[in-house]
């Protein structure tokens, strides 16, 4: 456990730690000692090619790179001297001499490594008066990523990613010298289940996501951390949103669950949360047509079909709600309504144990384990066949369904809707729109639910790890949580508190330029003064 001194502060580190790891910490926390870098990434091997992370070590006349130098006992490291600053300035200068002036049209503006480091070390008058090297722009790398080779600073992070993490070897660096270009071989596109991670790790706007391209400037976005609800891995993610809705999802570091990465499927999940895909008002189908009403009113309206009907009410749950909601609705049904007919809708059991070796799992529900734990706690033990037979025999009059938030992974949605709508009364609670449900006839109530990003909760992942997530923002403020819906359906008196917190920080609405939430940007040291 060697002790070293960094910028005057003594730090003790584990054996085999490099200087840059000592300054950044392996878990991505960025304490005071920061080092300019591009090619180093804690989740990838060391390349040492950007030559920006120069530090001065006492006793060594030559500057060393921090990413490849091991800390030894008593090492005195300093990266605030003039010599280091000058080396970093020239390192940055060399990066910029052939870099195109694309900032006005580049997605990366606002979170760009070159911009951020220029504010820190740059602010010089450029002296390069020759013609810049011209390379390929707008290269279609694959279904999800676009490449601009002129912007690329050849840090090789993306190449190392496809070699070491996704192990698919699509990317390479071709040609020598300043004619070098990142690229794929013709006919082998960048197309694996983790391709969009390369966009995250690219420090500049060379790799951009086709989905996010040109859609929003990053300084108009707030970000909040939550857990992905795409599968039972439960990767930690950061969602980016403003008043218009959600725009993108990026991974957040968690050493126990997903490391630094997330899969591409999880990145699409923000689309199910935005208003255009949501039920905004409850719909009650009667013999006269469709009546729209507030969700709370609809739940109250439907409660006659639920409360005091005992065992003829069935509850169908999908594994996509939080543990707190399960606890509340299951105990309401078991204790207050005295119904043990609680069924777990498992959509593709044969794939449940699939695992691709990296992050993707076959069970596309974030909280299957949580649901199983709650059911077990209340002694609920049922099987699906009983539900279907009880519906057809008439023993079950009302079915309350907590439908999936992420309908795309439920292949049996149509079949289940058909089966469950055979009951006399159907109360379907769900976040997103569904045409089949809206076309049903009979006693049907369709009640909009809050998405998981709009509430606090806990998901339990495949390994039994319980992860708490906090509300990020509100999209449909009138929608109910499962807890509120179950209370209303059971006939309990419930006052729905008006939403006071429409945004996480109401005094700073997301569509104004805010400074604090950009703090965790990798290349920013301090917000510079212009």
């Amino acid at each position, binding site marked *: 456990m060697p002790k070293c001194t960094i910028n005057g502060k003594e730090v003790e580190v584990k054996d085999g730690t490099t200087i840059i790891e000592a300054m950044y910490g392996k878990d991505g926390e960025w304490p005071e000692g920061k080092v300019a870098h591009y090619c180093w990434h804690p989740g990838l091997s060391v390349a040492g090619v950007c030559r920006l992370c120069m530090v001065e070590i006492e006793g060594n006349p030559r500057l060393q790179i921090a990413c490849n130098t091991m800390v030894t006992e008593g090492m005195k490291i300093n990266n605030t001297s003039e010599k280091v600053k000058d080396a970093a300035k020239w390192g940055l200068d060399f990066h910029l001499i052939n870099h195109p002036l694309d900032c006005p049209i580049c997605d990366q503006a606002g979170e760009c490594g070159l911009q951020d480091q220029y504010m820190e070390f740059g602010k010089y008058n450029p002296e390069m008066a020759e013609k810049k090297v011209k390379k390929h722009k707008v290269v279609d790398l694959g279904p999800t990523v676009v490449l601009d080779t002129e912007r690329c600073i050849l840090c090789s992070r993306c190449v190392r990613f496809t070699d070491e993490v996704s192990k698919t*070897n699509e*990317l*390479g660096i071709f040609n020598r010298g300043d004619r070098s270009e990142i690229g794929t*071989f013709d*006919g*082998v596109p960048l197309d694996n289940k983790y391709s969009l991670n390369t966009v995250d790790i690219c420090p500049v706007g060379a790799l951009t996501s086709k989905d996010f391209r040109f859609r929003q400037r990053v300084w108009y976005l707030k970000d909040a951390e939550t857990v992905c609800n795409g599968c039972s891995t439960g990767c930690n993610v950061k969602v980016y949103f403003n008043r218009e809705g959600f725009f993108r999802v990026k991974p957040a570091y968690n050493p126990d669950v997903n490391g630094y990465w997330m899969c591409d499927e999880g990145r699409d999940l923000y689309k199910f949360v935005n208003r255009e895909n949501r039920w905004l008002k409850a719909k009650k189908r009667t013999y006269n047509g469709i009546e729209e009403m507030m969700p709370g009113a609809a739940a109250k309206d439907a409660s006659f079909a639920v409360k005091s009907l005992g065992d003829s009410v069935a509850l169908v749950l999908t594994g996509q709600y939080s543990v707190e909601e399960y606890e509340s609705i299951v105990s309401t049904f078991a204790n207050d309504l005295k119904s043990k007919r609680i069924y777990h809708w498992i959509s593709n059991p044969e794939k449940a144990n699939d695992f691709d070796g990296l992050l993707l799992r076959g069970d596309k529900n974030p909280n299957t384990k949580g649901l199983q734990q709650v059911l077990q706690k209340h002694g609920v033990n049922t099987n699906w066949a009983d539900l279907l037979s009880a519906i057809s025999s008439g023993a079950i009059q009302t079915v309350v369904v907590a439908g999936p938030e992420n309908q795309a992974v439920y292949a049996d949605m149509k079949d289940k809707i058909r089966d469950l709508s055979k009951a006399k009364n159907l109360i379907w609670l769900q976040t997103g729109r569904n045409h089949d449900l809206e076309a049903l006839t009979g006693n049907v109530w369709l009640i909009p639910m809050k998405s998981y990003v709009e509430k606090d909760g806990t998901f339990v992942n495949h390994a039994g790890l319980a992860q708490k997530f906090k509300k990020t923002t509100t999209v449909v403020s009138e929608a109910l949580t499962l807890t509120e819906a179950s209370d209303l359906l059971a006939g309990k008196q419930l006052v729905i508190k008006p939403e006071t917190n429409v945004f996480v920080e109401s005094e700073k609405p997301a569509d104004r330029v805010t400074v604090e939430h950009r703090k965790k940007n990798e290349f920013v040291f301090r917000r510079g003064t212009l």
Partner: protein
Amino acid sequence: MFQLSTEGLQKVKSELTRYEDKMSAIIPALAIAQKENKGWVTDEVVQHLSQVMDIPTSRINEVFKFYTMFNQKPVGKFHVQVCTNISCALNNSRELADHLCKELKIGFDQITEDGKYTISRVECLGSCGTAPMMQVNETYHENLTPESAMNILRGLR
């Protein structure tokens, strides 16, 4: 679609086991394939080698585009490479290269109409004591004058 001849395939297969790691066989394989593909390497060649050697195309493509001796564009039957680095430049090799181009009526890295010659300017070939000099395919021709160089070229079959 490019395919190695039986003989070429045999050679590549033997290179795969000749060195400690099969990746080392990429350079020899590209050299063999280039010879069979009229002196240059195309995407099809890389694709074929990737199948034969079971190595990802991106790795072979990287090696192909890194080294000067693998041609990315077609060349004439006789690839005339004139050294224009310092020792040869001190002995007027650049003027020699210009002279050859003028005589053959082509620019650098182009092919004559009869497909016979391509003139390229290259870096040091390790023959500085006998400057100016040129390499035609695999043979060095040293101590040249503009006339002797043209005579050599005209005599090539």
